[in-house]
Structures are given as structure tokens and as C-alpha cells.
């Protein structure tokens, strides 16, 4: 390989990891909801779109940096998630219907309403937040004069990645170390047993949906300095989150992180070596391959190792 080829490969891998970090955050929110509620939230991408419009509005009207608007968008999305769960999804849980998965269908409807509301309020124009650091980049030769290869790292991408890792770490701490986090995991693993331990399962469902929405809202704030925004963008990200959830293993946060990274890397490699337009096809190749070859997701492979 010539040094140019190595540069291209490394550059591709780096952007793949950055993208994967953001994807992981997107997937974790969906997998959390999946674990506790046993439903796929098909409004997940639309919730992210809402988070992005919040960041966009704050930037356009008050000149608030998109990264700072995490602190507003995430709590706002938490509240939105809580409301959706409490007033729309929970009542549907108790209704007897001919369709067993009517909550899933409800989330599709919620997604449609959200994207149409966005069209009404913001029109269907493409939006972005033109921050001044959007085109800034770090070059490896700035730090290491004699470097044999030259790599550039986008400032916005690396900051987004840093926040994604930080939020994931905080979430891990919450789920692993606090009583409420443990209660959420317990509810996901065995609802009746959690009830016997005194866990208010209904409340946990509401909090989990809020948390999943807050995570994807934060992911929206991390995406907007990098992506364009339009009302229909949600559907695409719902699909991405869905693929990550299937690839990682339903309900597994570790699986979502690994799945997100794999998908990010794979898309980045496809875009460089096959062509930009092929990335979504690569995504669904992975999806189908996961369904056929590792139906339990990555987490099932990890488990096999652990249980010997």
C-alpha cells in the first residue's frame, strides 16, 4: 500500500468510528426502550429530529451553540417522552385489540405527527446551524512535524464524538451504580420479579421512555453541526437505530455500542471504497446478515463466551 492509500484507509476508519459513536447513542436510546417496554419505538428518529429543531431554533433565535443546547434539548425531550408514554402508550397497553403490537403502530403514528408538526412550524426547507467551527479541522502535522502521513480530523465531528462517549459513560454509570438504574435493568429482565421487589414498574416505563427520548435528543444536538436538517429526516434515523438494535441484540446497551460502531465503520468504508450512495445498501446488508447469522445479536456471541 502506498502512503496515500494508508491515509485514505485511516481517514475512513476514523470517520467511521466518529459516526459509530453517534450511532451508538442513537441505538442505546432505542434498545433501552426495547428492553423495558418490549416494543420497538418507531418514532425514535422523529424524536431526534425534534431535538435537532430545538437546537436549530435556539441557534437561530438566541445564538446558542448546538453543543450547549444539549442541556435544553435533552430535558425537553425527556418531558416529551414522559408525556408520550404516560398519555398515549400506557393507555394503549391496557386496551385489548386484535393487533398484539398496537403500541408499535402507535409509535409510527406519533412519528408521523411529529414530522408533520415540524413541517408546519419550520416548513420543509433544509436547515443547518452554520457554526464558525464547522469547517475547522485538526491536522496531524500540526502536532507531529515529521509525520509520514497526513490525517485531518474535523473539529465538529471530534467534539460530537467526545460528547457521545461522555453521555454513554454517564448512562452506564447510572444504569450500573444507582438504585434507579438497577431498577430499570431489573424491570427489563423480569417485570414480575421487579414488582415483587417494590419497583413501581409503571413509573420505570415512563422514566425509561423519557430517558430514551432524552438520549436521542442529545444525539440530535450532536448531529446538527454536521448534518442538514429537514422534517422527514427522522425515518432514516429510526431505521439506523433499528438496525443497530437488531445487530447488537434486543435490549442490550453493550450490544448497541458495539453495533453502532460496526455500522458506522461499515458505512464509512462503503462510502469510501464503493461509493457514497451505497452506504444505505451496506446498512441493510448488515441488517439481513445479522438476522440470518447472529439472530441474537452481538450480545449473544459475548454471552456464549462468558458462560463458556
Amino acid at each position, binding site marked *: 500500500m502506498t502512503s496515500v492509500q494508508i491515509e485514505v484507509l485511516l481517514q475512513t476508519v476514523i470517520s467511521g468510528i466518529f459516526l459509530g459513536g453517534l450511532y451508538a447513542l442513537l441505538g442505546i436510546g432505542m434498545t433501552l426502550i426495547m428492553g423495558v417496554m418490549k416494543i420497538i419505538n418507531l418514532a425514535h428518529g422523529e424524536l431526534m429530529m425534534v431535538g435537532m429543531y430545538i437546537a436549530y431554533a435556539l441557534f437561530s433565535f438566541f445564538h446558542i451553540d448546538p453543543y450547549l443546547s444539549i442541556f435544553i434539548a435533552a430535558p425537553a425531550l425527556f418531558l416529551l417522552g414522559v408525556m408520550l408514554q404516560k398519555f398515549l402508550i400506557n393507555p394503549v397497553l391496557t386496551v385489548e385489540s386484535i393487533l398484539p403490537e398496537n403500541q408499535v403502530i402507535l409509535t409510527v403514528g406519533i412519528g408521523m405527527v411529529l414530522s408533520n408538526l415540524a413541517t408546519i412550524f419550520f416548513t420543509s426547507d433544509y436547515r443547518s446551524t452554520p457554526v464558525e467551527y464547522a469547517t475547522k479541522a485538526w491536522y496531524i502535522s500540526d502536532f507531529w512535524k515529521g509525520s509520514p502521513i497526513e490525517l485531518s480530523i474535523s473539529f465538529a465531528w471530534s467534539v460530537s464524538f467526545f460528547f457521545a462517549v461522555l453521555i454513554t459513560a454517564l448512562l452506564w454509570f447510572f444504569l450500573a451504580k444507582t438504585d434507579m438504574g*438497577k431498577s430499570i435493568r*431489573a424491570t427489563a429482565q423480569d417485570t414480575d*420479579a421487579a414488582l415483587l421487589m417494590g419497583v413501581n414498574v409503571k413509573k420505570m416505563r415512563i422514566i425509561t421512555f423519557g430517558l430514551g427520548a432524552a438520549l436521542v435528543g442529545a444525539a440530535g444536538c450532536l448531529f446538527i453541526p454536521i448534518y442538514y436538517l429537514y422534517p422527514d429526516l427522522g425515518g432514516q434515523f429510526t431505521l439506523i437505530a433499528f438496525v443497530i438494535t437488531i445487530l447488537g441484540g434486543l435490549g442490550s446497551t453493550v450490544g448497541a455500542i458495539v453495533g453502532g460502531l460496526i455500522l458506522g465503520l461499515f458505512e464509512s468504508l462503503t462510502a469510501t471504497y464503493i461509493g457514497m450512495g451505497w452506504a444505505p445498501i451496506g446498512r441493510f446488508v448488515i441488517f439481513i446478515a445479522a438476522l440470518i447469522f447472529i439472530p441474537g445479536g452481538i450480545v449473544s456471541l459475548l454471552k456464549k463466551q462468558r458462560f463458556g
Partner: protein
Amino acid sequence: MLEIGHIDVFYGDVQVIWDVSFCVKRGEIAALIGANGAGKSAILKTISGIVRSAAGKIVFNGKEIQNVEPYRLCEAGISHVPEARRLFAEMTVNDNLDMGSLKGNAKKDREQTKAMVFDLFPRLKERRNQLTGTLSGGEQQMAAIGRGLMSKPSLIMFDEPSLGLAPILVREIFSVITKIREEGTTVLIIEQNVKQTLAIADRAYVLANGKIVMEGTGKSLLNDEYIKTAYLGV
């Protein structure tokens, strides 16, 4: 302490419990025995609110609890060690024990109670950082009992604690149950292992087809001709 008055329970459209009444007095070991499908587990699930009774009432410490939200019963002092253990398999022993002590005093005294549980089951202390899904059946039962004790209950209910265990472990579990009673916790146990259960029970009820057909002290039932032929195979 616990009074069950004329409860009827349905699973879907099928009635599984017919007009059952019994009581558990403070400080004793009460037992419900009966064959598979007699309705024993249904009764425990009704007491802890996972299944609702269609009629009748359940009184605990003078208060009617049949309409109380199930998650509040743990704090009220009822602990239910469910059938087949129902541990949180992907959490460690330590986290499972923490889950048993989420509220009020139980949370405050968590480390103290945990030390007591580890005294009772030294094996759990060795394995406290292991996922409960990787434990042996006996260890899982110990973890489930330990988790049930973490809420510092005044009444602890065991659903078939001997299920699937080797005879030597069954003896250990039964001796722990007697120890729990000696330390002041009232016990309600349901079992298919009739002989060993009656040997430790102060009061016992025999359940058949969702109805109570006999009651008496553990010893008197152990010597009863009907019990001997129907359940002990003597």
C-alpha cells in the same frame, strides 16, 4: 397477621381458587401443601398482588391489601420469594441483593442486612460479583432467599424453595427457613415436598383443586392417614 377471607381467583376465564380462607399467625411457619396445579402459587401471587382476586379479601396487619398496588407490598413488610427463583439473571449477586432493599429502612440498613445474608449463605459472599445467571441451582435459590430477606420483611413467603434441588441442599434450605423464623420473621411456605414441610410447619393447609380440604398442625397432618396415602406414599 395475615388473613385470607373467601378469595376466588381466575386465570383468564378459568377459576383456579374457590372460596379459600386461611390465616397465618405472627411468628409461625405456615404451610400450604398440595399437588401440582392445586392452586398454591396462585394464592401466593394473589397475596402479593401480581394476580387479582375476583372476590374476597386479604388482611395484613389489620389492613385490607387486596387493592393495594403490588409494588407497595414490599415496603409494607411482605416479601415473596417466587417460584423458579426469578432472579435478575444478568445482574450480579450483589446487585440482586440491592434490588431487594430499595425502600425506606431496608435501604438504610442495606449493608448490615447484606452481612447477615452472607452469614446465612457464605457461598453468596464468595460469588457476590458473579452474574446470577451463571450460578448453580442451589446458589440461585440461596440468592433468591437472600434477596427476599433484604427488604427486612415481617412476613416472607416461599414458593417451592426446594424445587429442582439435590436432597442435601433441600435440607440446608429448610434449616435456613427455620432459622429465619427463629429470628422473628413469620413464614408462609408452599411446597410439594410434603414430608419435610410438615416437619417444620406449625400450621398447615392442604389444597386440592383450588379448595382447602384439610388443615391442622404440621405434626397432626404428618400422622394423618389420608395425607400418608395421598401425599407421602406410605
